[in-house]
């Protein structure tokens, strides 16, 4: 077990180094940071001076080595755009993204599982066909369109909910939260719904398919024959057995929700790491971009690691293989 985890950890480090290297070699195609840092009045010699100062004239490999060297010590430098330390910028934005991600995961899970079970239990009801068709829209409509649509309806027309931002936040010292104020909660509703729609439909379809599969199993029939109540059969036996893949998918999706809430954050001006990344790309703010991509890699690596370990715990066959392969 320990050897397995250590091997996985080592692989994770290699993956992260690789992500960093790829990201780093891509930055040169994003544009010239110097051009956006210096204004119209700047002269070519100013540009040269600044490139020298930032070490942009060095070979990419050397720049990469320097970046990794600093990153290992927790130094990500200072943002070209905002002149503030990158680590501080990312940590100040992280609570917003994480709260949004968890809120939307919660919505997706609750409604996804609920609707999935409902549509599986009544496969031929007209309400099921309505839900199923509506879910197609959820999957196929682009996020920004859903976001703008929701803003138009709930903010502009009905004036019920705020169209942008995070509302009032409470500073807990190491974490700023919008969950403790009314305006913070109100601000969370639209972006969380927008971000959750895709996962919601995904989970709903998954639960429905799994559930239909399970309901055909012999043990359900035997349960019916034993005269157990519908409730016990559906929720006690059938649902329980469908949840394993659902939990895996939700876990993995949470990673992508944290990492790629970019569009939702931009549409709702949500002050998270995603919108920070978009603003940084526009002006080629290399330190922020590099740190963000490394952070995203870390999120995925950690989640994958946890999932791998869970599989190892759950699935005895993996352990047998490991023993057999380890001779």
């Amino acid at each position, binding site marked *: 077990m320990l050897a397995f985890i250590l091997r996985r950890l080592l692989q994770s480090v290699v993956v992260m180094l690789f992500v960093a290297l790829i990201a780093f070699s891509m930055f040169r195609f*994003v*544009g*010239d*940071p110097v*051009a*956006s*840092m*210096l*204004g*119209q*009045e*700047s*002269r*070519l010699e*100013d*540009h040269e001076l*600044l490139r020298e*100062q*930032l*070490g942009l004239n060095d070979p990419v490999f050397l720049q990469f080595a320097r970046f990794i060297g600093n990153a290992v010590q927790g*130094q990500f*430098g*200072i943002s*070209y*755009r*905002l*002149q*503030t*330390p990158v680590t501080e*910028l990312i940590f100040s934005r992280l609570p917003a993204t994480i709260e949004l991600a968890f809120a939307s995961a919660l919505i997706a899970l609750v409604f996804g599982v609920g609707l999935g079970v409902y549509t599986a239990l009544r496969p031929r009801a007209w309400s099921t066909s309505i839900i199923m068709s509506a879910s197609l829209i959820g999957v196929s409509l682009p996020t920004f369109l859903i976001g*703008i649509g929701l*803003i*138009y309806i709930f*903010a*502009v027309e009905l*004036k019920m909910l*705020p*169209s*942008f*931002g*995070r509302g009032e936040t409470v500073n807990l010292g190491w974490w700023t939260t919008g969950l403790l104020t009314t305006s913070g909660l109100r601000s969370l509703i639209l972006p969380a719904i927008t971000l959750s729609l895709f996962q919601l439909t995904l989970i709903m379809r998954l639960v429905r398919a799994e559930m239909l599969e399970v309901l055909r199993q012999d043990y359900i029939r035997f349960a019916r024959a034993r005269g157990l109540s519908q409730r016990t059969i559906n929720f006690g036996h059938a649902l329980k057995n469908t949840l394993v893949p659902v939990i895996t998918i939700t876990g993995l999706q949470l990673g992508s929700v944290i990492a790629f809430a970019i569009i939702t954050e*931009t*549409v*709702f*001006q949500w*002050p998270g790491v995603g*919108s*920070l990344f*978009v*603003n940084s790309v*526009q*002006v*080629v703010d290399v330190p922020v971009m590099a740190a963000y991509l490394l952070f995203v890699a870390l999120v995925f690596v950690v989640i994958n690691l946890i999932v791998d370990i869970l599989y190892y715990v759950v699935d005895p066959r993996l352990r047998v293989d490991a023993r057999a392969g380890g001779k």
Partner: protein
Amino acid sequence: MKKLLLTASVAALVAGALPASAETVRWARVSDALTLDPHSQNQGITHNFAHHIYETLVDRDVAGTLIPRLATEWALGDDPTVWVFKLRQGVKFHDGADFTAEDVVFSLDRARSDKSNMRQLHASVESVTAVDDYTVHVKMTGPSPLYPNNLTNTFIMDKTWTEANNAVTVQEAGSQDDNYAVRNTNGTGPYKLVSREVDVKSVLELNEAHWAETKPFVTKIEYTVISDAATRVSALLSGEVDFVQDVPVQDIERLSSSDGVTVTTGPENRVIYFGYKFGDAPLKSSNVTDKNPFNDPKVREAMALSIDRDAIKQVVMRGYSIPTGVATPPFVNGWTAELDKYPAPDIAKAKALLAEAGYPDGFTVTLDTPNNRYVNDEAISTAVVGMLGQAGIKVTLASRPIAQHSPLIQNAETDFYLLGWGVPTFDSAYIFNDLIHTKSGHYGAYNPGGYTNPDLDAKIQSLGTEVDVAKRDATIAEIWAVVQADRVLLPVHNQVLAYATKKGFNIAVHPENQPRIYEMTKD
């Protein structure tokens, strides 16, 4: 009439007698100030924000004229290379310190220092000295008749405060830590900084001790960043913000027709133009491989005749642009209505000219355009591709974000490009120095076309030191005549800005897009 006057004066009396009511303006913009350090970045949005906290010696009003701010008078001294500034008395910084000449000397020196991005504007300053508490002498390396024009965004900091907080050196890019002045302020301006959350919201509060006699009606400013255009407009329509500064042209009509919103439009001091490669060397992106078609005056004339500026205005800009035939905005010294005239499109003549020049079947070329810098920049280029196509010039469009477009311009790696040019000094010399003069040394940084004319270069350089205004203006006119005759640039239009406010709030469009909330009025 008398009654009206009476009513007005009674109203004024009543208004004066009542305590000023707290009035908050929520101001939304596309992005945040990059820094609070006033000398670090030379960027419009950063300056715009800083103008509310810090002040400059001289300023520019909405008509584009220079007005006094921390300096009450300025003039050339007995020595024509010395500018004498008389300072306003009784001004205090937000922390209560007095504003004196030593703060001006300190700030100008800081703005000229190596790490300041403002230093180019002060490149011809030799030294700055305080003569007494309220007089400053700025010694130039040579006669510099236009130097005060360069001061409209150079803010004055308190020497003691800056030194006490170790912020004398301007923030260095690439270092690991930030400077105190990046996040803290101590200006003389009409508002004090209360809080700032970068990229989210900044709150400013009225500085009760400000020197101006008329107090602004806005007592609190909430500066909010909303980068998505649709969301920004929605926030105004839903009443969550009061003033949207960056209104996309496609939304002007919709906003004007909705209740409770006022849209104000006005010209910006920025011209949009096309430029092309001069010289004999063949173009990199053309099928003509033995010579450069753009070097033929007939081809350039044909291009000028192919472009339908009015159609671009109507279709691409939805009516919000000011077509022009000269690459200078009307605010700028040297602009004339005569120069501004542009030809009516004439495709038949354009085709004939191309045939005469030896290109009866036209030629191919690539047009480089930015797609996120100017109003509808990519759409303008797309329209021009079609228009030139009618005359036979087959243009391929290469569209890039400005971060990738500007290196092409600065390294002269483009055959044909779109660019916009703002003129912060409001004088033609600024355009000539960068766009027309041969690319060498401090000149011609934005002349990727490589146009060169030694006679013109000499005239352009003379503008920098000529103190006789009439003579100088005559030279400017001569230079423009040559630039127009040679068709060095192909101007399209001047940009128009649109501001949208909640009904009842009024703010005039500032030509440099630097509206001042303290000048906002209420019905």
